């Protein structure tokens, strides 16, 4: 199966900067396209020529192993020349601003930039200064659109739908771009979203996002179809936002006892990398209800779909 049945799907935009602004049809279109790449990726011959001759630069101002390799693999399987640039502080320390970096890279005529940055809005700022397509691989606490797409694809493949599901997103909502993108996407496709976190890790006015807010994990998990755990950053563990790892795990770590409050067929997700024994117990992470490894597989397929869809609107396409 190497046909191209959905090859006509196009995103009517040059960049993918967030889930915000995507229509439900565009989201579904990307998910459908991703399904083809899931099949492709399970074959021996995994290559397409969609991006042949194109240059993709992975520009990661914030270190990341898995997202960067996922994008790298996605680009290579579509035939692009992929270059990884770990900018983490080197040129910034020399005083180069983000806009300087953008101008420098732009002069090298890349076709796609994959950008991660620790500041919210930084990817959008960079996108305004370059001529190529830009994919947001995570900006501050703002958005991480391909993560939300891969999560949605994983859910849809396991539950057959997204509409009508009850999804609990649990953990450090306040600092999470994964949570924001997921809330937007799941709501756009008709799921009901709960957030579950200690009050100190909830963003201000989160209830205005149209989500149900819980700080009691057991009640928050009642009747849910999907439990999405978030990573808790180390610097927030010891007294600044929560008193200790021990206390956090006790009240908000997902173990089998807490998971039993969810529906019996509930599935567990985590964007990785996991802190075992902090937000999630190993028994759950590796258990029968866990989709965590499948999420990684879907990540490559979704990123191929995004690159493929954007490639049709590239200049000279």
């Amino acid at each position, binding site marked *: 199966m190497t046909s191209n049945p959905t090859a006509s799907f196009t995103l009517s935009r040059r960049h993918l900067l967030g889930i915000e602004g995507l229509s439900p049809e565009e989201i579904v279109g990307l998910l459908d396209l991703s399904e083809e790449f899931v099949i492709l990726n399970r074959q021996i011959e995994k290559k397409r020529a969609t991006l042949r001759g194109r240059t993709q630069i992975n520009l990661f101002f914030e270190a990341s192993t898995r997202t960067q390799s996922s994008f790298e693999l996605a680009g290579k399987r579509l035939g692009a020349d992929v270059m990884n640039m770990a900018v983490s502080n080197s040129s910034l320390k020399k005083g180069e*601003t983000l806009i300087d970096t953008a101008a420098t890279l732009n002069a090298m005529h890349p076709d796609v930039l994959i950008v991660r940055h620790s500041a919210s809005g930084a990817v959008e700022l960079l996108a305004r200064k370059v001529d190529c397509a830009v994919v947001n691989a995570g900006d501050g606490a703002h958005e991480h659109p391909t993560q939300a797409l891969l999560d949605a694809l994983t859910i849809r493949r396991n539950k057959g739908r997204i509409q009508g599901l009850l999804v609990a997103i649990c953990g450090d909502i306040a600092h999470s771009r994964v949570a924001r993108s997921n809330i937007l996407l799941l709501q756009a496709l008709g799921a009901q979203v709960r957030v579950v976190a200690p009050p100190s890790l909830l963003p201000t006015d989160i209830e205005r996002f149209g989500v149900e807010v819980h700080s009691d994990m057991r009640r928050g998990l009642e009747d849910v179809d999907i439990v999405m755990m978030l990573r808790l950053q180390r610097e927030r563990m010891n007294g600044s936002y929560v008193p200790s790892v021990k206390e956090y795990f006790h009240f908000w770590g997902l173990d089998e006892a807490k998971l039993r409050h969810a529906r019996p067929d509930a599935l567990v997700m985590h964007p990785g990398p996991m802190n075992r024994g902090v937000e999630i117990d190993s028994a759950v992470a590796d258990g029968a209800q866990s989709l965590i490894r499948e999420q990684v597989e879907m990540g490559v397929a979704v990123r191929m779909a995004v690159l493929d869809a954007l490639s049709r609107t590239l200049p000279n396409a």
Partner: protein
Amino acid sequence: MPDLRSTPRPTLLSGARILDPSRDLDTHGDILIADGVIKDIAGNLKAAGLPDDTEIVDCRGLIAVPGLVDMRAFIGEPGAEHRETLASASQAAAAGGVTTIVCQPDTDPVIDDPAIVDFVLRRARDTAIVHVHPMAALTKGLEGREMTEIGLLQAAGAVAFTDGTRSVPSAQVMRRALTYARHFDALIVHHTEDAGLTGEGVMNEGELASRLGLAGVPRAAETIVFERDVRLAAMTGGRYHAASLTCTDSLDVLRRAREAGLDITASASINHLTLNERDVVGYRSFFKLSPPLRAEDDRQALVQAVAEGLVDVIVSDHNPQDVEVKRLPFSEAAFGAIGIETMLAAGLRLVNDGSVDLMSLVRAMSTRPAQLLGLEAGTLRPGRAADIALIAPDEAWILDAAMLKSRCRNTPFDEARFEGRVIRTLVAGCTVYEYV
């Protein structure tokens, strides 16, 4: 550059609407200026006979108001002349109808020594085309620990005492300063912000900040410190002025303080009166201010407070920052916007939409700050210096940031539409700006 010490020809501003909040005067007529002072104001001075060489300026359709007094402008001289000099700030001020700039002490070196006050005054005399008065630091080095030589600084010409954009964290330091300053009847101006509560915050805390993934500054960070200061002012009897209030809770505190008869006054910046937090959508760092732009209902409450006279003063909060520190991701960009040149035009939006009458606006931009600082400005009373702005109220225009006179271009009003602009500015009878 006109020399303020030379004596220009007598001038007659003829047929203007004359608005003078210091006397609640709103009339039509002529203003005769000679020897740098207002000689006479009357319905028709031509009939009474004029000095021989009088220049007659036809001001029909224009409004003559006392030149504006901007109580909060950050300049950069000495120490950051690439951002702004006293000369460039004064050019911008003149183009905005501002005839008196009150510059802030967070220069390098800090204005915490009488010699630096003297330096600023001399530089201003030699290079600026409007009046300049410095505020001095309230604490040495703006460090919030030891009070400055309030008496000597005042004698050198400092018109008030402030730590600029910094808040004094210690209630004890603030208490002692308020107590000591009483002997000199000195005004203490304070940026009310709890640094710990502000933390890494870069915009107003709330739903929008949460959606944008930006760290928020809660309103309480301002109100807590302001409320503390009100209690300290009550304890000490000191004269206290809040540098920039932005939210309804702070206004409630101010209202109660006034009702209790305390000598507490406050400013609002023109930005907080005309913009709100939605302006930062798209991560527009030119709208990144400290304190941050608040919600629309805060803005409306602030406008109402100006209309009622609860908030005494409107300031530009002019803060030049170069593009290099502004065109960065929002959380990394510098705080601050220029505004001295656009303060009046932006303020006229409030007049045009009917929320503040022109008399109240001019009072807040000219008469009140002059009174609070003890300056001979903010009035068109005969015998006083002829510091006057002439406004064409119906002139519609669009701001082009490239045309601004400031050394920096970080205006939040680029390409903004305005109705009403300054046509001519006089300082001590000399025309220092004319729109052509």
